[in-house]
């Protein structure tokens, strides 16, 4: 697999670090001092889609930037890559 880093361009899988479901990661609940079901499910529950999956990758072996990769988990085909926050 190769990922098209928004800054460095197309690079090998080995240069990247996986950080899991992006939509999930971006929905961090409001900081709190008490536990809540929102926090519980944010920390532990995943949609784990079969098919298109928006996921967070970091180019640790390059620019160290974070990107959201839309990838088909059934075929491994990468549909799009966007810089986080863009």
């Amino acid at each position, binding site marked *: 697999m190769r990922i098209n880093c928004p800054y460095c361009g197309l690079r090998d899988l080995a240069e990247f670090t996986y950080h899991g479901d992006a939509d999930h990661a971006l929905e961090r609940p409001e900081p709190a001092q008490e536990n809540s079901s929102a926090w519980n499910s944010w920390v532990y529950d995943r949609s784990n889609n079969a098919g298109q999956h928006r996921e967070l990758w970091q180019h640790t072996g390059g*620019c160290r*930037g974070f990107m959201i990769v839309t990838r088909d988990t059934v075929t491994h085909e990468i549909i799009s890559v966007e810089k986080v926050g863009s």
Partner: protein
Amino acid sequence: MLDVFAFSSIATGKAKSPLLGRAAKGSFPNSNGNVGITLSERFAISICEVVAWPDQAVAVRTALPKDDVTFEFASARWAVVSERHGNARRLRDKIGDKGSVIDLSHGRAILRLKGEDCGWVLSKLFAIDFEKMATKSGLATTHHGITAQIWREDESTFDVIIFRSFAAAFWHTLTRACADIGYEVK
């Protein structure tokens, strides 16, 4: 306020290369007697990282000195290599509060490869398309978890910037990769 740049000085004459005693100088031809590549360490020069705030990237880019090896290896993040001492301070003055300057002169080692076959040798170690890499350009990549920055000075000259603590191990790997070309250590 502590003056962190005080530590970047390498002009004390007490600085020791991480390759000291590990990189035997001399010629190591291949079995046909050829020497196709020259290796050397660019030691005791200034290496800095400059990082701009997102909204200051353009301003910093224009503010950066042109005379040095300067390349943006990550978005709004530059490596600046210079023979000039105290370069960190100079950069700090140039960019002010548009970003940060981190002096890494002690934290990195720079190896220079010279020769027609640099591409062949580097391709053994890095998954980079060197045929397409422009001269006077640089990038960040990795070799089995050893992060590296690579600068192409000209058609047949490359600088590889690696973490100091990995220098000895990487040197060993690099010379192995050069063996079939034959190499000389300057």
